């Protein structure tokens, strides 16, 4: 177990390093001089050179990268070109909002998705199953932002049940969370259904039935725990997409989270802000995958005890 966690940790560190590298490269091949972008057109060459020096942009690229990593390790991701606020401060401030949105959506997706998938698998071929399958495939085919707009239109503008923007009340999170959750709910329901169907035909389920267990005990006690393994994988990889999806949702509902901040920084070409956000989100994604992998070990004893895999 310890060896397994250690190995995954080492892998994560390598990946995180790679992520920082790719992020840095991406941001440094952006055409256009960032200093020229942030300065007024009438800035003197001396002023430009001074700012360049202040920001460390006159140093060779590898030194810049080194400084970037050094900063990132100390949670210092530089300052915004425009607001001059430290990127890390802005991120932490806005992360709470995104976290609230994403976690509500995640809970909606997991709870409804898994239940729908399980019932659908057990009712295979019946009306409920067809409805879940149909709904799920439509759910994964609809663009998140469009679903958000339509929800806004129906429940916000027409029925006026929920506010269509902002975060003033807990109420305001309902529509964005549902909009964001629907897609992941759909894919989780699909995977749960497939996985349950596969598990339900395994020999050990027959054994469980042969012991005289009732359907409930067979499904919840024997099948679900086995079926959870692919669901967790998906829940882990989807977490990243959820974060990315929250960018679009935040944009639609004008929610001041990380996503909106990122889109804003793109539109304003605020490099440090963008670089920091990308690194931050990727890091969260990588770490959440690590958590997923370790939680496998708790569900599947075969991983817990195997040394080499």
């Amino acid at each position: 177990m310890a060896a397994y966690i250690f190995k995954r940790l080492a892998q994560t560190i390598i990946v995180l390093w790679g992520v920082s590298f790719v992020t840095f490269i991406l941001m440094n091949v952006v055409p256009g001089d960032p200093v020229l972008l942030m300065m007024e057109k009438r800035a003197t060459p001396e002023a430009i050179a001074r700012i360049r020096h202040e920001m460390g942009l006159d140093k060779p690229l590898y030194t810049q990268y080194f400084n970037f990593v050094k900063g990132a390790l100390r949670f210092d991701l530089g300052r915004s070109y425009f607001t001059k606020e430290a990127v890390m401060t802005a991120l932490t401030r806005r992360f709470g909002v995104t976290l609230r949105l994403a976690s509500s959506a995640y809970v909606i997706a997991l709870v409804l998705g898994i239940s729908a998938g399980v019932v659908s698998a057990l009712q295979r071929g019946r009306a409920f199953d067809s409805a879940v399958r149909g709904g799920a495939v439509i759910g994964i085919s609809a663009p998140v932002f469009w679903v958000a707009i339509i929800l806004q239109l129906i429940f916000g503008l027409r029925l006026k049940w929920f506010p269509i923007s902002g975060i003033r009340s807990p109420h305001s999170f309902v529509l964005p969370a549902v909009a964001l959750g629907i897609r992941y709910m759909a894919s989780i329901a699909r995977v749960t259904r497939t996985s349950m169907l596969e598990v339900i035909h395994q020999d050990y389920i027959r054994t469980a039935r042969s012991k005289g267990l009732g359907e409930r005990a067979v499904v919840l006690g024997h099948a679900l725990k086995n079926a959870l393994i692919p669901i967790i994988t998906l829940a882990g990889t989807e977490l990243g997409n959820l974060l990315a999806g929250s960018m679009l949702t935040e944009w639609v509902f004008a929610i001041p989270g990380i996503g909106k901040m990122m889109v804003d920084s793109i539109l304003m070409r605020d490099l440090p802000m963008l670089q920091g956000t990308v690194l931050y989100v990727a890091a969260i994604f990588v770490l959440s995958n690590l958590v997923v992998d370790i939680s496998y070990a708790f569900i599947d004893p075969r991983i817990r005890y195997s040394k080499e895999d």
Partner: protein
Amino acid sequence: MTPPSPMQNLNPNINPSLVSNPVSDPVSNPTPILRVRNLVTNFRTSAGVQRAVDGVSFDVARGETLGIVGESGCGKSVTALSIMRLVDSPGVVEGGEVLYDGVDILKLPMAQMRRIRGNKIAMIFQEPMTSLNPVLTVGTQISEVLRLHEGLGKKEALDKAVEMLSKVHIPMPEKRVRAYPHQMSGGMRQRVMIAMALCCKPDVLICDEPTTALDVTIQAQILSLIQEMKNSTGAAVIMITHDLGVISEIADRVAVMYTGHIIEEGSKMDVLTDPLHPYTEGLLNAAPRIDRDCEELEVIPGAVPNLAALPKGCHFRPRCRRAMEICRTSPEKTCLGEKGGRSVSCWKFAERAKHAKHEGKGERT
């Protein structure tokens, strides 16, 4: 118990067409605990209806071991699953009775059936590797049965599980009870399965090829364990196998299955030493034997026919060396019955039986 030469006991007064079920020997089978009557299980697939089990009947008594032998696809496992009512869709048990202690369990409500499963009738499966739940400890899996049927508490059930593990000769049962299936060898897992099946002292134990997936040496151990457990609990055992070796080691009586029918039934000695049905004969001739000196093993020509497209008449006819004209047109019939519980489905014996009736003698030529 039964003399090795059964034909001399052939009762010429029995009208072969009336004897559709084996007649139990009242001495060796006092009261059968499980009686299966004309069991029919069909698989309805897009490719047609397959009669996987087609009118199977047999009895087993407490303390008796019935071996059911046959090739893959002959319906022996489906028979077992039908008795347990565990046939998966698209299979459906469509006819017949399974009388446990006089009650037709095929007609019981599911809730009552569940009280019988694992409690009164237990089953051991072929694949010890996949038949145990990989994410639960063996202790959990055994104690689950005890908690369900005996109403034991968590702690008591676990203690009883340890006891069961030591009964099936698993070393260090206190430690093993916390192990997961993948930490055990195939033989160990099958022992766990046996412990699980026997912890409620069932009246009937159905073993579906319990040794097929195991090494030869382990096979012998598991068989003797089943034997030992049967002797201590007095359960009736139905041993399903394709291996005549297993039959010869453990069974009291043997039923040979082909395409969903029992084509021959009798005591172990009778069937193994004096097979009547050409198919049984073929099976025995295909087996290597130490007591006979022969150069080559015989092979039964052809393959088991597709159940959705069975040949007309006797299903074994295309592979049978002794096929007659009548085998081509009419289906086989159970034509021979006698005190030793012997029956066979073959026209050859219908002819012989008629013949015997005329001459008052059943000597075989």
